[in-house]
Every structure is written in structure tokens, then in C-alpha cells.
């Protein structure tokens, strides 16, 4: 193989990896903000909890490829390009973050919560000083699942023109070029592994001794 071809491919891998990371970072970051906020609100209102978990669960059951498809024809939020892909990835990441936020906060032991309230904590203080710190490992575990899944799902984003490592994989498949497929697949897998290891490290740090 020609050295120039290889160098071009390497450059492409690099820039597509960066695109991929941006897709994942923006969508995952937004999903964390939305998921944790809705999760907190859901622990305060039973009605909200039922609705939010139901919606997020339904979104999660839609195959990711189909979800990209559904969003395409919708005006304003849909269409070809990066923003549609990001929206889709956000929706897809919500459930694990939302669910783990709710489970983590609900998991604070009853006497701990009872004492904190009886000592005169406001609801905000209870959340900041007690519930969130104690739920943090569980919430992080949810973010970890969302992040690792997201890195894989973002590969499909290439199909609606959002770029990322999927570009190489789809092109490789179309032209039966194993090298291109691998050039997309291997960095995506490595990204997922790094993300998983990083999050696991963070989780262990946050978990109580």
C-alpha cells in the first residue's frame, strides 16, 4: 500500500475521531444535565416520575437506527446533519442517567433522610448535602452506561451526515474495504474502552470506603 494513501487515511481517522468525540461529548453532556435535573424533579413529584421514566423507556426501546430515521422528516429539529444526530443521541442516553438518578436518591436510607429533615435542612440543602453526594456513585454508573453506549450509537450518526467514525465504517462496508472498516471500528472501540475505564475509576473514587 502507498504511503500517501495511508497518511491520508490516518489524517481522516484523526479528524473523524475528533468529530466523534465532539458528538459524544455534546450529546452526553446535555443528557447528563437533562437526565439529572429531570431525575431530581422526579423524586419530588410522583406524577413526574411516572411520566419521565415511561417516556425515557419508550425512547430507549426504539432501535437507534429507527430513531435517527424518525427525526429526519421533522421540521426544525430534524433534517440531515449534526444537530439531528446530537438530539437523537441525547434522547438515547437519557434513560440510564434518569433512572440511576432516581434510584440513587431514593436509595438514601430512611433514618438519614429523616434525621436531616428533622435537623432543619431545607429541601435544597437535603439535596445538596445528603442526597446528591450519596447518590453520586449510582448516578455516575448511569452516566457510564450512557457514555459507552453513546460512543457506539454515534457511529450510526454518519448515516444522516453527522460525521464521526461511522463515516469510515459505512464507506468501508459499501466499498468492501476492510482496512477502512477497521480504521473506523478500532478507534470507536478504543474510545469506548477508555471512557469505560475512566468512568470506572471515577466511580471508585466517589464510592464510600
Amino acid at each position, binding site marked *: 500500500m502507498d504511503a500517501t494513501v495511508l497518511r491520508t487515511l490516518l489524517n481522516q481517522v484523526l479528524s473523524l475521531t475528533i468529530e466523534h468525540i465532539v458528538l459524544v461529548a455534546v450529546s452526553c453532556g446535555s443528557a447528563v444535565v437533562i437526565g439529572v435535573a429531570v431525575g431530581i424533579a422526579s423524586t419530588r413529584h410522583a406524577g413526574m416520575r411516572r411520566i419521565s421514566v415511561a417516556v425515557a423507556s419508550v425512547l430507549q426501546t426504539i432501535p437507534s437506527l429507527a430513531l435517527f430515521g424518525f427525526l429526519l422528516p421533522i421540521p426544525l429539529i430534524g433534517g440531515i446533519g449534526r444537530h439531528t444526530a446530537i438530539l437523537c443521541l441525547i434522547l438515547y442516553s437519557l434513560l440510564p442517567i434518569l433512572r440511576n438518578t432516581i434510584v440513587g436518591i431514593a436509595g438514601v*436510607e*430512611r*433514618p*438519614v433522610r*429523616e*434525621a*436531616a*429533615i*428533622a*435537623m*432543619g*435542612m*431545607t429541601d435544597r*440543602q437535603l439535596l445538596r*448535602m*445528603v442526597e446528591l*453526594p*450519596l447518590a453520586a456513585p449510582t448516578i455516575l454508573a448511569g452516566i457510564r452506561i450512557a457514555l459507552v453506549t453513546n460512543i457506539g450509537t454515534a457511529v450510526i450518526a454518519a448515516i444522516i451526515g453527522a460525521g464521526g467514525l461511522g463515516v469510515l465504517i459505512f464507506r468501508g462496508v459499501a466499498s468492501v474495504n476492510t482496512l477502512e472498516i477497521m480504521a473506523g471500528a478500532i478507534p470507536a472501540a478504543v474510545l469506548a474502552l477508555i471512557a469505560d475505564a475512566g468512568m470506572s475509576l471515577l466511580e471508585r473514587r466517589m464510592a*464510600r*470506603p
Partner: protein
Amino acid sequence: MEGRRILEDLSFGVERGETLVLLGQSGSGKTTALRLINRTLDATSGRICIDGRDIRQLDPIELRRSIGYVIQDFGLLPHWTVEENVSLVPRLLGWEMDKRRRRARELLNQVGLDYQEVHQRRPYRLSGGQKQRVAVARALAAEPGLLLFDEPFGALDPVTRHEMQQQFLILRKQYNVASVFVTHDLLEALALATRIAVLDRGKLEAQVTPGEFITLRTPVARSFLDTLPSGLLDRCAD
């Protein structure tokens, strides 16, 4: 809960330096009575006053910070150190760090713990007795005028329980604090109470001094007296 009255016709008063013990079986409404006092529950009718002021006119958050509270399961914050736990209410009240530290040191020593040894520990590294001592110190931290105890020593071994009861008597005198103490242990009630209120399914059956208690003929009081080893009463009567 809809419709069911948990407490009815319950009336009592406690002065500084006194301990009113609410004695009753499980489900008699003892804990509910405590929760009405710090407004973690609100009564549907009736009136509760502290220093002559109706608590419904007070802000519930301020009210709770002015009342010490100790429960059987300790309720220590597991991610905070002993010192941070003891300093909880002072922190909520905005005390400065130095003042909180001094107060925590003083309190931990008062409840019989070695400050140097325990102040940096997390609750999981304490024994049950130590945890409850920390919980008592936490309740006293901001020098409340009123203390609420919800079966605080029920989970402790008999020796530790006795030590804690003695400590309670010392602290009550030292702080000249009013206390409402929930228990289903008659001996504990007799040891600590200045008055005993007997609860029968949410109703006040009798309210007496510990000395008068053994003469009671009411059903719940009798059933509690029946739990004492025979012979003990005769000695009490002498």
C-alpha cells in the same frame, strides 16, 4: 392517610429540666406525637406551643433547628465525619468554622467520646453506642431548649443503654433542657421520666409521676407492669 385518627385527645406539657416519657406499645402513636412537635407532620386539629408560641406560627425549618432530635437508627450522615455530623445544625445556622469546631470538641467530650480519636472518623467506623453518642451530641449542638428522643437507646446492648441513660440524666441537668422521650421500655421510663404519659392506641391513658406509675390500674399501664420481674415492684413500693 385518609380518615384514620392516629392521635386523639393527647395533651401534655414539659418544663425545662423535665422529661416527659411517652410510654406505649408499637403503633400507639408515640412517634407521631414527636413528629407533630417538630412539624415533620402537621396536626389536623389541636395546638402545640413552645415558650407560649403556637408552633404553626413559626417557620418549620427554624423550628426544627431549635429542637434537638435523636432517633433509634442514629441517622448520621454516612459521608460526613463525626465532627461534621455533630456540627450539622450549627452549620445550618451559619456558625463560623472555628466556633463549630470548638463546640464539637466540647460536645464529643461531654457525651463520653475522645475527640482526638473519633472526630475524623466516618460513622461506619463507630460502634452502635458510639454512633448514638454522636447523635446525642449532634442534637445538643446548637443548645436547643427542647429535645425529642424517639426510642434512642432501644438498639443498644443493656450495658451501653444504661450508660447512655446515665449520660442523659447528667446532660439534662447540665443543659436544663426540656425533653420528650419515647420508649416502650418501662424501666427506662421509670429511670428517666419526671412524668410518664401512657398512650393507648393514640389516646392518653394516664399521665403520672414515675412514683405513681406502679399504682396505676389502667390496662396498658398494667400490661407494662406485668413485664417486670415479680418482686421488683415490692421493692419499689417500700
